[in-house]
Structures are given as structure tokens and as C-alpha cells.
């Protein structure tokens, strides 16, 4: 089949081209290609988006999300590959759970689901998890997401042992003793609301620790969901002296500031917390200058029961798969910080390189993972229309630009806007 008359986002620019798909791969790129096809006049073809940080909740928390609903949300959001975090129940710390996730994802058959294994057994920070076995079963990375490995010694060992299997540690950076029950960014708005704040250093000291370990051990490390200006600067400096550190951030960190907590809307409760304008601008600057390699959603769906409670008791997290592309396009490309090609790299190319995944670019021979969007369509975020079970978004009612129309995975149409 042929995708015709589209603006195709290539590494070095956007070109009006036709694109032939054969046997799940991109077979030909050119003008005036013949054959049965899809007319995409006015639409833009991007390399299939990759989100290396989502929570699918299955097994264990199917009330919040499951692999089927999460996958449906992913393809609706334009994602062709997603990496799911190990804080399931049981924890994804062994090959059985890894295999279970892969099998379920295959049955669901929407997007490619890549499990991330836990660093330690039960994410308890004591013994290393079955890293080799998980790798053999199909895990693509390791993470203790939701917390940090408390012991620096254990973390060093984890990074070294993981490296033997070609796996990277994706580090959630949070010093629990500094957070000390904090639920929002410490600042004007934490004082105004009386909600307990957490200072930037709670995130920064662990970012610094992981950088030190990576530098000292000459190993790569990946920093999850960077939210502070100071954290961006730590990574920038580390990169400048050659440390193999990569980093990600999320749409809420470059779109919102902590004034959104003033209404006590629990949908604004996320970890790390939404910070101040200074941080928001630094995150955008970090994306611009390459300090922050990629954009992830940290898709953290929750049931209403977990959010319709006191702010301090509410669950952390934002359901992000269905808004990520539009928010990023609106905020960064329309906002003038990134070109469309650069955005495609942040949301597809870079995650593929960091984790060594296939895809991430449009080229002859590459898998036909494609996201086709209308970049002129403006729409309003409506959580009721989410296919994810998690309706928890602080963006309800927000006007955004850029709408995913079709998502192809290995050449098969997996999502088409109704």
C-alpha cells in the first residue's frame, strides 16, 4: 500500500513524498508512487512515536489500566512502541512477568510493548532482580521507577551488572528523606495551599549521584522525568565533560507551573511535582540544546477513586498518552523551541537510540511504524474521550494543536480517528 501526498518528516527535513509499505516495512520513498493507497494530502507523516516511560498497570492494577486499554491509548496518541515500568503487582522483577506482559501485548496486538524490569527484587532495594533472565525474556531496560535505589553501593552494582547484559538503568531520582511526605513543589504555592512541599534538591541530589556513578564507572545512565532547572544544569555539565548520561522530560514539566495546584485539583499531583516558571523554561532550554534527549509521558493512569480524595492522599500521576504529542507540538514546535524534525527525534529517534530499539526514523528498510497527524487541527482536551482507563489529566479543557489521524505499526493500520 502507498501513503500519498504527505509531508514526510525525515531526519534532515520535511518533504512532500509518497511512501510504499511492503511486508511491514518501508519499501520505497518517492514521488508519484503507483498503487492502492491512502491519500494524506495536508497530513504529516512522522516516524512512529516511542514512549520509553509508561505505566500499564497490568498485572495487578487493572482497575487503573491494563495492557489492552493502555495500548489503545498509545496508538490513539500516535505511539507505536511503549516501554512499561515494572511497578506492577507482582513487580516485574522476573522473566515470568516479562513474558506475561509480552504475551498479553501480542494478544492485544496494537502497539509494540517493551517491558522494563525492576532493578531490585520487589523494588525493595535489597537484592538485585533476575536481570539476566529478564533480558533473555525480552526486557529492554531496568528501572526502580516510583523511587530510587536507596543504597548507592547497590545502585553501582546494578549499573555494572546490567551493563553486562547491555541494559541501561532508567533512574527515577528522589531522595526520600528530603521529600519527607512532600506532595508538591516547595515554593510560593506550597505555602499558599499549605500542601507539604518538596525542594528541588530532593530530585537533584540523586541526579547528581547517578551522574557520579556513571562517570566513575564509565557506564551509561538515563535520568527519568527531569523537572528542575538545577537538574537540567547538572546533566548539561555532565554531558559536556563526556559522561554518558541521557535524560527525558514530560509534557507537564514544559507546559505547566505549580500555580495549577492552587485549586487543590489532585490531577495536578505528580512525582516529581510540577515546578516553577524558571524550571519550565530550563526544561525547554534543555530540550533545545540537547541536554534533555527525549520526551516521555510518564503515563500514570489512575482510577477516579485514587484521585477523588484529599490532595495529600491522592495518587501521584498523570494520564498522558493521548495528549503528549499535541502538547509537545503546541508547546515546543508552535512555541518556536524545536523544529518538527527535532520533535520527531525527541519522541521517536532518541528513545530508539537510547534503548537500542528498532524504528525511530523513516527510511527505506525500516519498520513501517508511522504516525500520521494533522498539524493544523486544533482541539480541546476532554478526559471523557480518553480510551485510557485513566482520565486523570490536568489538561482538561486546554486547547491544543496537532491531532493524530492514523497510526501504523509494522505497516498495519492500528488506529484511525473516527
Amino acid at each position, binding site marked *: 500500500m502507498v501513503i500519498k501526498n504527505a509531508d514526510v518528516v525525515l531526519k534532515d527535513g520535511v518533504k512532500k513524498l509518497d511512501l510504499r509499505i511492503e511486508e511491514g516495512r518501508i519499501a520505497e520513498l518517492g514521488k508519484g508512487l503507483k498503487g492502492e493507497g491512502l491519500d494524506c494530502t495536508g497530513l504529516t507523516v512522522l516516524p512512529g512515536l516511542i514512549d520509553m516511560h509508561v505505566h500499564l498497570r497490568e498485572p495487578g492494577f487493572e482497575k487503573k489500566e491494563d495492557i489492552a486499554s493502555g495500548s489503545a491509548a498509545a496508538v490513539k496518541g500516535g505511539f507505536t512502541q511503549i516501554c512499561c515500568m515494572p511497578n506492577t503487582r507482582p513487580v516485574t522483577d522476573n522473566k515470568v512477568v516479562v513474558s506475561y506482559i509480552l504475551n498479553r501485548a501480542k494478544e492485544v496486538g496494537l502497539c509494540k510493548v517493551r517491558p522494563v524490569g525492576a532493578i531490585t527484587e520487589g523494588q525493595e532495594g535489597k537484592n538485585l532482580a533476575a536481570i539476566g533472565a529478564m533480558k533473555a525474556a525480552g526486557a529492554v531496560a531496568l528501572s526502580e521507577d516510583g523511587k530510587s535505589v536507596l543504597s548507592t553501593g547497590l545502585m553501582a552494582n546494578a549499573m555494572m551488572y546490567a551493563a553486562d547484559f547491555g541494559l541501561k538503568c532508567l533512574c527515577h531520582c528522589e531522595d526520600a528523606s528530603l521529600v519527607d511526605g512532600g506532595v508538591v513543589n*516547595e515554593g510560593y504555592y506550597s505555602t*499558599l*495551599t*499549605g*500542601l507539604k512541599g518538596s525542594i528541588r534538591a530532593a530530585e537533584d541530589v540523586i541526579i547528581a549521584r547517578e551522574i557520579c556513578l556513571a562517570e566513575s564507572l564509565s557506564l551509561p545512565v538515563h535520568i527519568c522525568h527531569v523537572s528542575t532547572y538545577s537538574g537540567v544544569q547538572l546533566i548539561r555539565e555532565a554531558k559536556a565533560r563526556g559522561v554518558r548520561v541521557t535524560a527525558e522530560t514530560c509534557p507537564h514539566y514544559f507546559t505547566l507551573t505549580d500555580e495549577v495546584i492552587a485549586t*487543590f485539583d489532585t490531577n495536578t499531583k505528580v512525582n516529581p511535582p510540577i515546578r516553577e516558571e524558571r524550571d519550565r523554561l530550563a526544561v525547554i532550554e534543555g530540550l533545545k540544546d540537547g541536554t534533555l534527549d527525549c520526551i516521555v509521558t510518564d503515563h500514570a493512569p489512575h482510577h477516579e477513586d485514587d484521585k477523588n*480524595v*484529599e490532595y495529600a492522599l491522592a495518587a501521584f500521576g498523570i494520564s498522558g498518552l493521548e495528549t503528549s504529542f499535541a502538547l509537545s507540538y503546541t508547546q515546543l514546535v508552535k512555541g518556536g523551541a524545536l523544529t518538527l524534525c527535532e520533535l520527531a527525534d525527541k519522541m521517536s529517534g532518541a528513545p530508539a537510540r537510547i534503548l537500542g530499539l528498532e524504528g525511530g526514523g523513516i527510511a527505506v528498510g525500516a519498520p513501517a511504524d508511522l504516525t500520521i497527524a494533522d498539524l493544523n487541527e486544533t482541539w480541546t482536551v476532554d478526559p471523557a474521550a480518553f480510551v485510557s482507563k485513566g482520565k486523570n489529566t490536568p489538561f482538561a479543557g486546554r486547547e491544543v494543536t496537532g491531532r493524530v489521524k492514523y497510526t501504523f505499526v509494522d505497516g498495519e493500520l492500528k488506529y484511525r480517528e473516527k
Partner: protein
Amino acid sequence: MLKHKDVLGLYDLSAEEIDEILSVGMSMKKLLKQNIKKLPHLQGKSVTTLFYENSTRTRCSFELAAKYMGAHVVNIAASSSSVQKGETLVDTGKTLDAMKNDVIVIRHPMGGAPRLLARTVKAHVVNAGDGMNEHPSQALLDMLTMRENFPSIRGLKVAILGDISHSRVAKSNLFGLTKLGAEVTMYAPRTLLPTGIDKMGAKVCSSREEAVEGADVVMGLRIQLERQHAGNFPSLGEYAKFYGVNEQVMKYAKEGALVMHPGPVNRGVELTSALIDGETSRIEEQVLSGIAVRMAILFLLTKQEI
């Protein structure tokens, strides 16, 4: 007339609304001072106090205020642990609503809980203190006491000293007093001073004397022993020595400046006994102001229905 269904905090109320509560509160206090404590306005109404934290003082004050106006009053003391384990606040609210409560007075250890309840129920919700957020009725009673003692709150200088970080009272007073045109100065150990309070209209001072300089009212805030254990300061003795208000410090205030404290007071820590029991102390007066202002809140909220 109040424009809000609920009284959640002074941050939300306009200067006019605060002024109206204080005016009605003055009338209530006049009645109370004559020992007239049988008003008919809440006859046939139900008021529930829902307290997730112990506070005999505030609960009694609300209970008497409601009873003096003829309401049926039910007191629910929920333990703090039931916040985490028991029924959710939303469900408790729905139950109280189904029981046809007209007003729910809530005290809760977590900021924003009254707002969550207010969104859930049809009943009027009155915040009796939520976490580190607000304690509007306490600030209103402080302001009522000031209004009785001065021609106007506009232009007053009020110094607040003590644990400001954990004090919902300090914040509610700051919002209310600045809305009515008073100047608020603050002084506390840095460990007990919240981020950004200066951007909310308080003048944060670098010494007791500077804070109290020229003040019409000096307010002490309770220092809890837990804060010492949390490492916010070495000991109550050291606090008293370097941060407490004593007669020497009061010399910097205006002559005859009033001494106030939301209570319960640690004698010799926030304020010396001589100041607590002195001529200029209004600490006992604040208690009656509390009932009056709570009557005023209940009066004005219920008045919306006619």
C-alpha cells in the same frame, strides 16, 4: 451577603465579605456580652462538626455558636487514622448530606480537605482548620477583637511571631488583615518560616524588635514541642530566649499595644506570663469573639437560603 456557599478560607473571601462577617460578629458579640444567647435563626437547622483532629476549643466554640442560634448540633470526632483507613471524605460527605445537614464544620489534618468536601456536598461547609492551609474563623475572631479595640483595621500594624510555617492561623490572618488594609510583619526562626510568605504581603523581619517596632497588635503563635523534635530549633528554652515576646521586646511596640494569641499558649515560650495576664492582653477576649464570629458565619451562610 456572602457570595460563597462555603467559608473555606480568607484567601477566597473579598474584603466586603470579611467586613460583613465582622459587622455581624460585632452585633453578635454585643448580644453575648449582655448574656443574650438565644437567637432563633438556626431553629430547625442541623449543624455537624466533623473533626479529624482534636480541638476541644474550636469545636466547643462552633457548637455553642450553633446552639445559641437554635440549631441541632451533632459532633463527629473521627480519628486521624480513619482519614487513611476508613471511609473516604467524599463518602462521609455524601452521608452527611443525605442526613439533611445544613452546615458541616470540618477540621482536617490535610490542606484542601474542606474544599473537596464542599465540592461534594450541598450543605454549607465551614473550614475549622485544614492542615497548613487556613483557619478562617480563628483569623476572623482575631480581627473582630482588633476591630473592637481600634477605630478601624485599616492602617493597623500587626506583628505575628512564632511557628509561621505550620500555622494556618498566620496565613489566614495575613490574607484577612492585608485585605482590610492592615500591615503585617512576621518574625520566626528560618526553619519555621514558609517559602514565599513575603510575596503574600507579609513583611518578614530580621529581628523581634524590628517586627514589633510600632505595632498596634503583637500576636504570638503556638510553638509545638514536636517542632523541637523535628529539629526546627534546639529547645523551647532557646526559642523563648531568642524568639519569644517579653516586656523588653514589647517596648518597641506602640504604647498600650495589644497582646494576642490563638491559644493554647505555652507560658514563658511565645509570650511571658506577665504579658499574657497583663492589661493589654486580649487573649480571653478572643474566646468570646470566637463564638460571636462563628455565630456570624453561621448566620450569614444560612441567610443565603431566604
